[in-house]
């Protein structure tokens, strides 16, 4: 039975052999493609990459050490911030909506724009890389930890309360230990993200590191170097992902099936409270924006306040021209992002279903997909642009690839959540795998699908702005890079605001759609 084979992947091939077969296949395909396109300056095969790595071992080792050090510091600070925020939200549940929203907004800030600003702020040192790495990890860790701190039976919490103790004791004696598996699962996702953040920081004018080498190789059109550094960065990310996975299993046993779903607290009941809540959600980020800049007395030349942006876009003398430039670039970006986002989600879900129908393929493909999920976009973006060119196809493909792997992994997890008894009922009617897929497995997959659809929004923004900045020179990513280099900080901050608002609005729209669908297909996910 195919369904049974899926639930016991070892039936077709032992996992280790399957993994090896997958990796060997990948390398053979890669080398074959490189030979087919030899001379077109697109693709360097594994042999050429190995040769480059061997020749430049010293340089690469130094750059790797630098990048990893920065990533580690960012990993530390970002995760500490996430843990602190999660503890605050557990102790003060009223803060949840606000804390989650602000955290998401910060996560959606385009690194392409925050990088140069941090560079101006901190100079040429390591601080921008570390900050970007921290920004890249805090949100996913926060979400994972929130899920974990809440994944506690009510009676354990009641046990503490019947002894006259409160939220603090619940946290110390019950929630902390119960959340450890979720924390390690979050750290596993955060580890490659920290490398990504550090590399983007290095793009913005650092002196050493793998990001610096990537930029140099791309400028020189050095295909071997570009592929070698990308391979190295990918290997580091996969290793970091694997290492934290191993550590998590050692510490806490089998990791929980983690859906990175932002916790959604019940909306307030009365209209007045809803309006008030929304107002707080809008005002607080503005206050934070203004307050942080004032508190650190940041130079108004590059640290634009909300009022500056309002003047620049609405009330100032050339506001109409500014708006036209900004919205023109924005429209270009949307034209790439939306198809890429939709394609990535659709391909991920479809591939998950296909792997389910052909489980033999799944055993081989899944370890590869899990590994590829952890490769940072900065390493794949230059390769895709090399292969598909600087036009629409390249950018859309980058966005789609960025979303594809996480969606595939999440959807496969979701498909396997189909209750065993439901599968047995379908089997007892010999109803066939297609009917089982459509009537039972896909509905079971929906929560995972929507969770990835929401988490894909910041990922899509990161992918499209990075691609536009590094490669295509179009759209809002290029606009941000250009305005950062010409010190047109009003336009840069306007672009940041617009991108963050778009992310928040899309996130809210996907959430609303999700609520409507899950209310029918997975009532327990929206139960309040």
């Amino acid at each position, binding site marked *: 039975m195919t369904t049974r084979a899926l639930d016991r992947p070892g039936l077709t091939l032992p996992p280790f052999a399957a993994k090896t077969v997958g990796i060997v296949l990948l390398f053979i395909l890669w080398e074959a493609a490189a030979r087919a396109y030899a001379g077109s300056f697109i693709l360097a095969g594994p042999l050429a990459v190995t040769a480059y790595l061997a020749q430049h071992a010293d340089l690469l080792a130094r750059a790797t050490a630098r990048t990893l050090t920065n990533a580690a510091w960012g990993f530390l600070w970002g995760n500490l911030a996430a843990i602190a925020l999660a503890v605050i939200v557990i102790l003060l549940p009223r803060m949840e909506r606000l804390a989650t929203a602000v955290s998401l907004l910060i996560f959606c800030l385009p690194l392409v724009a925050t990088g140069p600003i941090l560079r101006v702020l901190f100079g040429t040192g390591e601080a921008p890389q570390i900050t970007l790495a921290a920004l890249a990890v805090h949100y996913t860790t926060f979400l994972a930890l929130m899920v974990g701190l809440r994944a506690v*039976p009510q*009676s*354990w919490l*009641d*046990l*503490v*309360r*019947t*002894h*006259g*103790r409160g939220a603090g*004791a619940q946290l110390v*004696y*019950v929630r902390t*230990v119960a959340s450890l598996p979720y924390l390690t699962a979050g750290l596993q996702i955060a580890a490659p993200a920290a490398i990504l953040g550090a590399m983007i920081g290095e793009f913005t004018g650092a002196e050493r590191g793998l990001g610096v080498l990537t930029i140099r190789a791309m400028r020189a059109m050095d295909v071997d170097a570009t592929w070698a550094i990308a391979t190295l960065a990918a290997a580091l990310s996969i290793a970091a992902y694997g290492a934290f996975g191993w550590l998590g299993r050692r510490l806490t046993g089998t990791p929980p099936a983690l859906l990175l779903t932002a916790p959604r607290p019940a909306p307030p*009941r009365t209209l007045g409270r809803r309006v008030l809540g929304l107002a707080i959600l809008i005002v607080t980020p503005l206050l934070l924006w203004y307050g942080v800049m004032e508190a650190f007395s940041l130079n108004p030349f590059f640290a634009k306040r909300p009022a500056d942006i309002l003047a620049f876009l609405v009330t100032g003398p050339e506001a109409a021209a500014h708006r036209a430039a900004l919205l023109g670039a924005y429209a270009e970006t949307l034209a790439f992002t939306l198809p890429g986002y939709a394609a990535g989600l659709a391909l991920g879900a479809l591939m998950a279903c296909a792997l389910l129908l052909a489980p033999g393929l799944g055993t081989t493909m899944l370890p590869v997909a899990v590994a590829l999920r952890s490769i940072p976009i900065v390493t794949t973006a230059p390769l895709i642009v090399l292969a598909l060119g600087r036009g629409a196809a390249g950018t859309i493909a980058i966005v789609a690839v960025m979303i594809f792997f996480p969606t595939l992994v999440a959807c496969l997890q979701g498909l396997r959540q189909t209750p065993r008894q439901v599968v047995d009922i379908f089997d007892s009617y010999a109803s066939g795998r297609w009917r089982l897929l459509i009537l039972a497995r896909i509905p079971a997959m929906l929560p995972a699908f929507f969770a990835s659809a929401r988490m894909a929004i910041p990922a899509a923004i990161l992918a499209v702005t990075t691609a536009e900045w590094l490669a295509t020179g179009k759209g809002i990513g290029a606009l941000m890079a250009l305005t950062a280099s010409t010190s047109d900080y009003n336009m840069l901050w306007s672009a940041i605001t617009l991108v963050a608002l778009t992310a928040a609005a899309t996130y809210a729209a996907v959430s609303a759609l999700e609520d409507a669908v899950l209310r029918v297909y997975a009532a327990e996910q929206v139960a*309040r």
Partner: protein
Amino acid sequence: MPPDNGQAIVGQAVTCAGLSHTFQTGGAPIPAIGPLDVTFAAGKTTALLGPSGCGKSTLLRLIAGLEPPSEGTIRMGAETPDEVCRRAGLAMAFQDASLLPWRSLRGNIALALTLARRQSDMDSVDRLIDMVGLSGFETRRPAELSGGMRQRAAIARCLISEPDLLLLDEPFGAVDELTRRRLNHDLPALWQARGTTALLVTHSVTEAVTLADRILVLSPRPATIMADIDIPLPHPRRGEDDPAFQDLAHRVVAALEASAEGRPLAAQ
């Protein structure tokens, strides 16, 4: 009836006055309890029976201070449930034992002392483990224990803080019938000997008649008292062999059936 061994009663009576509780959900408010006026006598074990979802567990949660009632008052002596909780004067056992999987058996029982801010006296922990028949398993984790052993551990955790009031929410609901009988036979003496006031929510008529000094049969939601039946049998009770036991059990079943069908109970 006072405890058979004549020991002093440590518990105090629990009084519910004008008690009613309503759940405020998204839709229409759901009345769950009351109005209810009842006193649970000091040192006695009272069983609460009633149709599923009638509000038995909610009543227990209100008395445990886990939720404030919508209306009315609950007092143990002169104290509110919150005050009783704060001095660790009550303990509650949950349907699924609710042991923390990362703590050993000993650690789980000692947790109650830690939470009550008392010294972790390992000698008395081990003594209690012995009394509930788990010696030799002190360092085992809950996953290594059977369902019946876990329930014994949960009862031990309740008793270690020597509470005046014991709240048992279907504590043996998740174990098989044989194990349940054994637990019903072994464990109640531990708190009944101390004269602890106990409230037991259960679905089993046999269990209620075996353990309780008094049985309250509740109506469907909102819960009110349908029948109040005294069980004046000496402990320990052996149901199957005793016609008086059988007779009481039949009365309880009749009251339950009346409650489920929503008709008044025929005069007895």
